């Protein structure tokens, strides 16, 4: 009798990319829900545009490149990219912002490098950074959390903003504001103290009204991801550790004019970045030691950009800057192999 041959191991694999991506999507759910609760349906519109564009772009690129479409589409990585990009964009961005962003993420940052697994830079963050430098005006218009919205602002106003007809300037001004991070930075620049700044309405207990809950929801999702072993603790904790250490240092050194470490941890994209963005396996360091270093470096750089740089939020730039150093980090943090010194 004759038999088929193939090579060991013969045991069926226990894991798949699709499963990992699915866990990421599930872990993002609390954050998404909180975002929608706090900032309204603009978030949802962003998500729909980003994810759809990402998936369509992914399929077209696969077709163009003559690669099988179904297995790569069903790995869900394009969906994750789209969702993460959507969550990073301002809630009132006009519709073409998520559209262009998603296109850049999938086509330029991902498929020009060969698609899944080959891109050296985090696609969603590249898209975010390019949008930020290209359309700074549209990229800095954030909606107020629902608790601060004036009575007269309607969902339809948000819609019309997103789809291009400007409602009256007064409504725009009433609905929008700089993010807490942005506000903090701008006002500190005007020599106000942290206390004075934080007494304004957009600030809440930890960081910003609404923002702190969103961050907490991401933290929850992140812990779930660690529990499911989709990500290891090294990157997120490294990042939060780095951010915490440097902000504590300056907080103790110059209290009053430096926001507290907790403010830094719970505002902007710190939590989202730590658990979902910096952890993108494709673009992160791969060795355990390397991952911790990678996380810490992102944390430090985030603080530096937030505090002294030109952009109010540094996560995106910090992530892609440290992405560049990943091959070097990996090179210098190889684990000791069994039986070697």
């Amino acid at each position, binding site marked *: 009798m004759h038999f088929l041959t193939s090579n*060991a191991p013969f045991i069926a694999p226990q894991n798949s990319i699709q499963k990992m991506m699915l866990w990421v999507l599930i872990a993002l759910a609390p954050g998404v829900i909180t975002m929608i609760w706090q900032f309204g349906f603009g978030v949802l519109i962003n998500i729909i545009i980003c994810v759809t564009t990402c998936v369509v772009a992914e399929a077209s690129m696969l077709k163009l490149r003559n690669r099988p479409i179904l297995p790569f589409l069903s790995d869900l990585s394009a969906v994750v990219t789209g969702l993460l990009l959507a969550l990073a964009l301002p809630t009132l961005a006009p519709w073409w912002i998520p559209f262009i962003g998603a296109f850049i993420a999938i086509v330029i940052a991902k498929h020009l490098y060969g698609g899944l697994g080959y891109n050296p830079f985090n696609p969603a963050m590249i898209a975010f950074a390019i949008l930020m430098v290209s359309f700074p005006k549209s990229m800095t218009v954030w909606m107020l959390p629902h608790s601060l919205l004036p009575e007269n602002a309607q969902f339809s106003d948000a819609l019309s903003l997103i789809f291009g007809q400007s409602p009256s300037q007064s409504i725009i001004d009433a609905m929008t504001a700089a993010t807490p991070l942005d506000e903090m930075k701008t006002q500190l620049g005007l020599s106000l103290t942290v206390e004075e700044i934080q007494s304004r309405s957009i600030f809440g207990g930890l960081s910003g009204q609404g923002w702190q809950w969103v961050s907490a929801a991401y933290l929850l999702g992140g812990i779930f991801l660690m529990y499911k072993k989709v990500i290891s603790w090294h990157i997120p904790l490294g990042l939060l550790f780095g951010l915490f250490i440097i902000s504590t240092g300056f907080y103790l050194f110059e209290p009053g004019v430096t926001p507290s470490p907790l403010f830094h941890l719970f505002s902007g994209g710190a939590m989202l970045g730590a658990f979902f963005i910096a952890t993108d396996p494709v673009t992160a360091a791969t060795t355990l030691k390397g991952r911790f270093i990678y996380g810490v470096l992102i944390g430090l750089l985030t603080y530096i950009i937030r505090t002294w740089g030109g952009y109010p939020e540094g996560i995106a730039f910090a992530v892609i800057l440290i992405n560049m150093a990943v091959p070097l980090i990996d090179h210098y943090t190889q684990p000791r192999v069994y039986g070697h010194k």
Partner: protein
Amino acid sequence: MRLWRFNGGLPSLAEHKNESVNFPIETAPVPPLLVYPLGQHIGNAAKPLVSTGDKVLRGQKIADAQGLISAPIHAGSSGVVTNIADHLIPHPSGFSAPSISIETDGLDEEITYVPHDDFRQLSTSELVDIIREAGIVGLGGAAFPTAIKLNTQNKALHIDTLILNGAECEPYISCDDRLLKERPHLVIEGIEILLHMIRAKRAILAIEDNVPDTFKSIQDAIAKNNNPAITAVQIPTIYPTGGEKQLIQTLTGKEVPSGEIPADIGIVSTNVGTVHAVQRAVIEGKPLTSRIITVTGEGVKKPHNLEVRIGTPIQTLIDVCHGYTKHAERLIMGGPMMGFALLNDEIPIVKATNCILVASKEEAITEKQAMPCIRCGLCASACPVSLLPQQLYWFSKSEQLEKAEALNLFDCIECGCCDVVCPSHIPLVQHFRYAKSALKVQNHDKHLSDVARDRFEAREERIARDKAERAERSRKKKAALKSKPAKEEIDAAVSRAKAKKQKPTENET
């Protein structure tokens, strides 16, 4: 006893031992034809001692060791040597290799053995000779000649610990377990022989903690034997805890330095089956002609452990297990993690064979559908050797083999852990096997080209020297000629030259 933990591994691999482990070892019948590949151990192939038509008896040496690292082969039953020629061998290459075929006569006549009731009377070197002559090689997988491993005095190595590998960490396989359940006293006696030989202070018998009843029976046997140097230890069930290096790390916390052997850190480790074979060879004087093998999988009707004569074609074993089921898809020699698939069932069992897995479609996947590596690092977390499989893969895939080698490719034990956990379903181990073999070929080529360069340069030098000498000679001659222009000499030279020129033409006709 304190235990250590090696990196990674697979703690939750489905075991599939129950299919075969609950039945006592049966003895397989004598097959009509026994086939002995001459190279069934690490080292040089054996040299045949018989020729076609010779009659042989069970236990008779039919091929002798050749060179230092090699082992003799003995006939498993009486019969007639029918041919010594190429035969399909159990090897992933699917190659054929020189083998001795014996047609059995069904009488199963044996030679007379020389038993040694009290091994303590014998010196280490006498015991080493007995083991070598018995053709014993490691039965745990690598088939390394056991006599060399146990001959530690020879190299003035100080051995402190003897480790008996009863881990049997691969799924499906249960032959060591059955052996320990049924013949614990024989194994213990074998351990005593080894202790006597290598003068180790202690012997540790390691058994995975998923077989408590076996552990109990072995502890009873140890208690009865009452030798304080021997202990049995339960180790956590984590694949590949049975790997020699992992087992050493688990039991002692020590690591075998890369490129060295356990003996260099005072440890000798052997499989329990090997010990059993040693006991038989010393006490009963019987050479290694049979071993215990697990035949299992959904592809056979009655999975089983069998005591099988080495050289028996797989087909015979399947018959003992009541034949194939309709699910039989793949024939695997060894376990599902490290075994290899065979083309057909005429291939014989060799000394290193511990398992025949007749797998169904569900039990053994066909080629994996690989996605790109997403650098998730799960492979590195699973690697018991702390390699970076993902980087090794990038380099082997892109033919940057030297870089893979620099990342310690050759420390990979091919356990398959990385492969199983990879979410991208990349056949990592296959890449590593490819890279290792390609590197070996490259190094061989490099060696050849170095030799060629040396020879070329030597030749160039010689030619240059010859030329210089010739020039020197003709210069001298010319000078001599000038001083004494003898006509006849010139004539002679001319005719000599003519003759020389003609020679080839003559030959041509």
